[in-house]
């Protein structure tokens, strides 16, 4: 049952990523892959909130797994971030490539921490 819900929410997460990506890309079609950065950072913030809810607000663990592994995991993506970094580097945009890889990681870790912090403050 958990597996089924995880899979279902993973599908919803991936579809959400596809739509958000299309909406952002359609607006600013630029060199830098802002869409994926935004998706990964917002998904990490949401996962931080969920982890905080699990730790400080007695969120049921099954609900946590379904939302965290399913939705957040399906919504965020590491592989696309890597491909976009490689493509920036291939087109000679080395600084942007480094900024994309390191920047996404730092922002995502910060966003996850912020999510946990917010739930801790609300406890």
């Amino acid at each position, binding site marked *: 049952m958990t597996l089924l819900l995880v*899979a279902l929410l993973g599908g919803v997460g991936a579809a959400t990523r*596809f739509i958000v990506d299309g909406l952002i890309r*359609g607006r600013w079609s630029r060199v830098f892959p802002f869409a994926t950065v935004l998706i990964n950072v917002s998904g990490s913030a949401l996962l931080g909130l969920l982890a905080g809810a699990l730790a400080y607000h007695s969120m049921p663990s099954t609900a946590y797994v379904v939302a965290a592994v399913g939705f*957040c995991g*399906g919504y*965020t993506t590491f592989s696309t971030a890597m491909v976009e970094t490689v493509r920036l580097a291939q087109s000679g945009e080395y600084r942007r490539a480094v900024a994309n890889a390191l920047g996404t990681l730092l922002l*995502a870790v910060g966003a996850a921490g912020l999510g946990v912090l917010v739930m801790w403050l609300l406890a």
Partner: protein
Amino acid sequence: MTPAHHLNPRLVVLVALGGMVGTTGRYLLSEAVPSHGGWPVATFVANVLGSFLLGALLEALLRRGRESPRGRAVRLGVGTGVLGGFTTFSSLALELERLLANDALLTAATYAVASLTCGLLACLLGVAVAARHHQRSRARRPHPDDRPVSGGAAR
């Protein structure tokens, strides 16, 4: 102009189905492979493997020339859906945040550096493998795309 694929319900469903498959794979992997010495091995393996496969897939599709409807379905279903859903950035971020919160600085630093370097190298390797395979198969039998393009802007 990029066509608005993200507003096409069929393609959204295709990405969702792929995402279900990829997420199931990641979930089963996380159940089967426990953390090792504070290292979230399952996330690491999924991310590195997924980066290799996505690099290879997108390069292979790119080298086929202009995208056909079937190529687009494969790119969105398998690339955006399955491999996008199989890999995860949020788990990586939360795992790093938890390691930092628990003062496991060295583990956090190793995990972060290893994820990025292995992810990038795996992706590059995937691109190289697809490029090599493409050249080899062209050497065996000339592809119709190899004929000189005539006519020009027919789009």
